[in-house]
């Protein structure tokens, strides 16, 4: 009986050891690759009201006179991993083209639905649908992970983007997006 706590500790350590590579893999796999120097924004407010504050990103974009490439990904979304892996695989070719952009990485999860996702800009926090309507984005009807927005430093949308990233997962097409080809 006295050995039981030691056994538990041993089991706990073994379990941790087993999960470390998985967690490490998950951290490496989730989000925009570091080569793009993303500004990572985690949500505040918990799962019922996940709020992403674009204020700091906007301030930095204005300071550095850069456009905003805002990416909304989910930790448990395979399509997000696919796009991020595409960016990772082609970083050498793509990163120079991203230089005029400040890449903003909003880290969400699939449980964060349109009703639960809020975007804060300055003093105003809006639910996803209202935010989309306020900027004239046609994607207000349905929240799709991943999503990308392109803004100028004043948060004016530069181009209507598609839901998802499936139409720009080749280098040529990613360049089309960065060059605002419509």
């Amino acid at each position, binding site marked *: 009986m006295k050995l039981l706590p030691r056994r538990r500790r041993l089991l706990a350590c073994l379990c941790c050891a087993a999960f470390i590579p998985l967690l490490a893999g998950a951290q490496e796999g989730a989000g925009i690759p570091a080569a793009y120097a993303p500004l990572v924004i985690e949500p505040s407010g918990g799962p019922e009201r996940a709020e992403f504050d674009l204020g700091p990103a906007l301030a930095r974009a204005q300071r550095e006179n850069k456009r905003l490439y805002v990416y909304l990904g989910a930790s448990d979304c395979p399509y997000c991993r696919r796009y991020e892996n595409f960016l990772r695989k082609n970083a050498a070719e793509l990163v120079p083209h991203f230089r005029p952009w400040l890449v903003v990485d909003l880290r969400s999860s699939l449980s964060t639905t349109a009703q639960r996702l809020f975007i804060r800009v300055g003093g105003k926090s809006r639910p996803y649908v209202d935010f989309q309507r306020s900027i004239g984005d046609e994607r207000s*009807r*349905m929240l799709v992970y991943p999503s990308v927005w392109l803004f100028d430093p004043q948060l004016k949308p530069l181009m209507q983007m598609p839901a998802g990233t*499936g*139409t720009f997962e*080749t280098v*040529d097409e990613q360049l089309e997006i960065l060059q605002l080809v419509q």
Partner: protein
Amino acid sequence: MPTPIKRLSCDRRRVFMLGLGALPFAMTPRARAAVGGLPGNTGHADLSPEWELLRGRLFGKQPITAGADRVQLIAPLRAAYGASVPVKIISKLAQTPDLHVKRIHLLVDKNPSPLAATLELTPEVGQADFETRLRVDEYSHVRVVSELSNGELHMDSRYVKTSGGCSAPPNRDSPELIGRTIFKLPGPPTMGAPTTADVTVIHPNDTGFELNNVTVMYIPSYFVRTIAVSYAGRKVFDADLDFSISENPTWRFNFVPHGPGELRAEVVDSKERHFTGSLKVA
């Protein structure tokens, strides 16, 4: 009463669908050549094997003038949703009894049913411009072919990048509203001149390719087949449609009110259900 729309075109459409079923096996290497995963014919004015087949079946050997001289198609390279790609058709000639656009065909080369719409027009439209929303299932050319009253055919096309249009879930929140047909005038009518109007039919326009997540069964196709629009008893246009038109099919069109009257739409869907909608214009 407007003339009933001929059903011949629906039968022809089924023939196209059957014929095109074999296309993935018959596509030329050019269309499948992948540079970075993309086919080689992605220019807006490019042809496609699907179009070549459709062209023969729809127009035989009649010459078709390509370019935006007589008709122009406006569509985004990438739309917000593949299930709802906005398209605008602009005709570059006035609609007169002597020379007018008689028929407009709207096609999506790579959709399972590529002929999205055939519009039969009269000079009563005044100006043959139309807007609607399309389902685009995968990367594809969208085309408009305008048939003039003198027999000439003119075509314009756009390459549209999208995916999953035919599997995006329609809104089924209010099934009791199916068939409700609504007219709207964005501005006041102008007597004797082309006046813009919208007609919308509340309808899921199911494609037959969507899976019901609860039953794990495919939802049968169920879509608006025809819309016949008239004003004061005179035909404006007849539309022969398909599920390549988005949920809640909407058309923006023009008509020439010669005096007070009623805009009227007669709608028939693929279950042979008939609906009507009307709007008094004064």
